[in-house]
């Protein structure tokens, strides 16, 4: 039996075979031999998760649009598939043409979540590619990565040849051109990497050395190769209207997590919530024009047949012409029976009027993210929302016919006390009261208030990047406390085990030495760590031990102001000085205003013309 026949054979035995079979609407039908450059886009998690990801759809369209490059997808197989592939000695194959990974010229991973890192190793391994960059030869593909977690590339420095930092749209094509040159002119791997290192926003970790002191604290990060930059400045696309956005996106046969059109209305956020890494990394805020969005949504509806459009951004409620946009989309989509949803609804921004319009087509549950239970705590994290804001919006929602509300909170925030946790229960109780305040005949039946609490994970490039995470026993104590106080009729409480959050804290602020832990954990059998059924915390701890590293050094240690952080050579646009200032303000529960109300001097003003709200005097 040939490779394809053996693959077909195992498909008969595997659960959810459609994950692996491809052939979806709008997936590339380019001929392998027609394109000189083959890009393997790897999503290091399952098909259902990967096919819900907007970045995949943007880059997939962007690479396939160029006549000289072809992009095919790879996903992380589930454990049953991995076992069957091993049995048949089959390599990881692309979803489209079923070419093995090692036949591609570039392998690109998107880094959305630290807990997917062992999947990267597993995919490379199954793809027949040496796991470590230093072991790759002239015939091996160049392995690249991008996405939000690339801002701290160090834990993956041993495995990824080049990182793309920041917005991917422009740098993607530039990077592919260099790799095409490698192929056509026969550039050596090293020469190719050196050329890549000279592209703005590209970081080649093997050209940098890191030194540590005896306690494991970094004493220096320096280039070891002439001609590479001291710091790597992230890429920013300045005008979203001029930036590529797909007009056709793949439509899976089976239901995936987000099975709808995602319309990115803007990028970035001006709120400055201090816990939020995306809010810092994706600065500055850039909006797509109303005309462009209407045009895109009509094209996407026509090319996909989807029944739903969700307006996507970090803070859709802040989009300047949101009511106009929603009204116009409603008007045009009503006859096409397409509903509009606003996923990250901020409680202080969306107009009542818009809410009523959303419901005209379809009613879903409303999500609010107060993040913390007391005003003091919300001031610490700079979540500029008050209790009365929240209750007013909830009242509007209940009066508008909603009966299902989700409230998102975090536990373990810096300076948090039990009083702040009790505040979460108070808020939930007040939401329930608002429901019963609406006369019975006017409110929808079946009140459901879902309170979700996730454990705070300090992230690089946020004012909390120096902070210690609560220890596991302390998190468990706080969660038990929440379970007790949230035993309220009509309220459901969801929480997560603290172990994943602890590990996430270790990896997200990890240095290069964490790479050894990743490799060891993978060798010991850790994969699919983002899934409860496959996560093996004890094995991870074993890996730390085997590498002689203490996870608490990464998760539970407070860093000093002058400590060199593993990502200090990456310039996210935000200065360390600004972040430290924000950290100090947070300790006094002093808020910082929204950038739209005036420049706060985050550092982006150093880059001329990048941020529309920047004041050059605030340098």
């Amino acid at each position, binding site marked *: 039996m040939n490779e394809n026949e053996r693959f077909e*054979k195992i*498909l*008969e035995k595997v659960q959810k*075979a*459609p994950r692996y*079979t*491809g*052939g*979806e*609407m*709008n*997936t590339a*039908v380019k001929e392998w031999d027609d394109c000189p450059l083959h890009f393997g886009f790897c999503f290091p998690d399952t098909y259902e998760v990967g096919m819900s990801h907007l970045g995949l759809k943007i880059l997939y369209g962007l690479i396939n649009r160029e006549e000289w490059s072809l992009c095919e997808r790879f996903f992380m197989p589930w454990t049953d598939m991995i076992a069957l592939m091993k049995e048949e000695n089959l390599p990881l194959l692309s979803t489209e043409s079923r070419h093995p990974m090692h036949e591609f010229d570039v392998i690109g991973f998107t880094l959305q979540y630290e807990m997917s890192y062992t999947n990267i190793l597993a995919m490379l391994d199954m793809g027949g590619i040496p796991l470590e960059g230093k072991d790759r030869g002239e015939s091996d593909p160049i392995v690249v990565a991008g996405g939000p977690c690339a801002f701290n590339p160090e834990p993956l420095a041993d495995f990824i040849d080049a990182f793309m930092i920041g917005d991917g749209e422009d740098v993607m094509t530039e990077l592919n051109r260099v790799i095409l040159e490698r192929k056509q002119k026969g550039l050596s791997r090293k020469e190719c990497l050196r050329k890549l290192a000279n592209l703005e926003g590209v970081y080649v970790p093997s050209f940098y050395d890191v030194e540590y002191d005896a306690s494991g604290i970094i004493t220096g990060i320096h280039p070891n190769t002439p001609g590479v930059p001291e710091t790597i400045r992230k890429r920013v696309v300045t005008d979203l209207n001029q930036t590529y956005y797909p007009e056709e996106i793949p*439509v899976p*046969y*089976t*239901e995936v997590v987000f099975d709808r059109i995602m319309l990115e209305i803007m990028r970035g956020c001006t709120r400055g919530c201090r816990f939020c890494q995306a809010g810092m990394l994706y600065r500055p805020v850039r909006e797509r024009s109303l005309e462009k969005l209407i045009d895109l949504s009509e094209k996407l*509806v*026509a*090319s*996909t*047949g*989807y*029944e739903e459009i969700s307006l996507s951004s970090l803070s859709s409620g802040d989009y300047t012409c949101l009511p106009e946009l929603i009204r116009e989309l409603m008007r045009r989509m009503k006859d*096409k*029976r397409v509903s509009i949803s606003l996923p990250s609804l901020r409680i202080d921004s969306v107009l009542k009027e818009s809410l009523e319009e959303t419901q005209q087509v*379809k009613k879903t549950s409303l999500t609010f993210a107060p993040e913390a239970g007391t005003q003091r705590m919300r001031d610490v994290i700079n979540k500029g929302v008050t209790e009365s804001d929240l209750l007013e919006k909830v009242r509007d929602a209940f009066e508008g016919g909603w009966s299902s509300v989700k409230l998102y909170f975090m536990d373990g925030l810096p300076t948090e006390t039990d009083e702040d946790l009790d505040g979460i229960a108070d808020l939930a109780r007040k939401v329930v009261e608002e429901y019963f305040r609406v006369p019975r005949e006017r409110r929808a039946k079946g009140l459901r208030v879902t309170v979700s609490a996730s454990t705070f994970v300090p992230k690089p490039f946020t004012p909390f990047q120096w902070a210690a995470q609560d220890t596991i026993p302390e998190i468990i104590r706080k969660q038990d406390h929440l379970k007790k106080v949230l035993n309220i009729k009509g309220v459901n409480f969801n929480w997560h085990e603290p172990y994943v959050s602890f590990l996430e804290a270790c990896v997200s602020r990890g240095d290069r030495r964490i790479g050894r832990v990743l490799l060891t954990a993978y060798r010991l059998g850790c994969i699919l760590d983002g899934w409860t059924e496959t996560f093996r915390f004890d094995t991870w701890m074993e890996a730390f031990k085997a590498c002689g590293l203490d996870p608490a050094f990464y998760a539970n240690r407070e860093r000093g102001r002058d400590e060199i952080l593993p990502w200090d050579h990456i310039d996210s646009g935000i200065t360390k000085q600004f972040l430290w200032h924000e950290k100090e303000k947070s300790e006094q529960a002093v808020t910082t205003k929204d950038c739209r109300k005036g420049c706060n001097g985050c550092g982006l003003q150093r880059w001329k013309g990048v941020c529309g709200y920047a004041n050059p005097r605030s340098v």
Partner: protein
Amino acid sequence: MRILAVFEKSERIRHIGHLDIQRSMQRGLRRSGLPVAYSNGFNPHILITFASALSTGACGQREIMDVTMAEPTDAEVFLAKMNRAMPPELHLKEARAVDDRHPALMGSLRAASYDLMVYDSQEAALLNSAIPLMMDQPSIPAMRKTKTALKECDIKPLIYSLSGEGQHIRAMLALTEKEACKPGMLMEALAGAAGLKEPVRFLTTRTGLFGENTEGNLAPLELL
């Protein structure tokens, strides 16, 4: 008016289940821009029915769907627009406009024809030679899966024709709302007759759906 359309479910997507095929067709109809009719009610959906659900894992050469249109639509226009809107894996082959009073497909369905491709040619030869042997028996016991249990039944009256050639076994099997002989039941019985101990690996392709014409003979459902 309604359109009866014959489509193919390709080998590549044979593991896609019936509900997902239904949804894919609905999205295809939405992409086509054709004037399809929607149901009334809170969550309107496209008025589309399928003559028969095709099992997960099976390919279909001539599957049939029935789409209610909101405006009169030419069958050729329907075919052309749909094929622009569908992936090659779900290609439409024919379309025919029918009156609203045309009987529902599901009720007229009597049988389906199958091509069962046996992967192992030695097994195929054994199965082929067992066909006359099995068909000579007064009854052919087989196990039918119900929702809760396995039930023994006689599939002989449900097999309308059966032949084998090379790796392919071709069969016409009863398929109505009340009773059906699934390809798996047939192959299990045939493997038993051939003295094979291990389950046979084969690829199922449903090649056509049949109803009864005025003379009482089986005829392609889409033409009735």
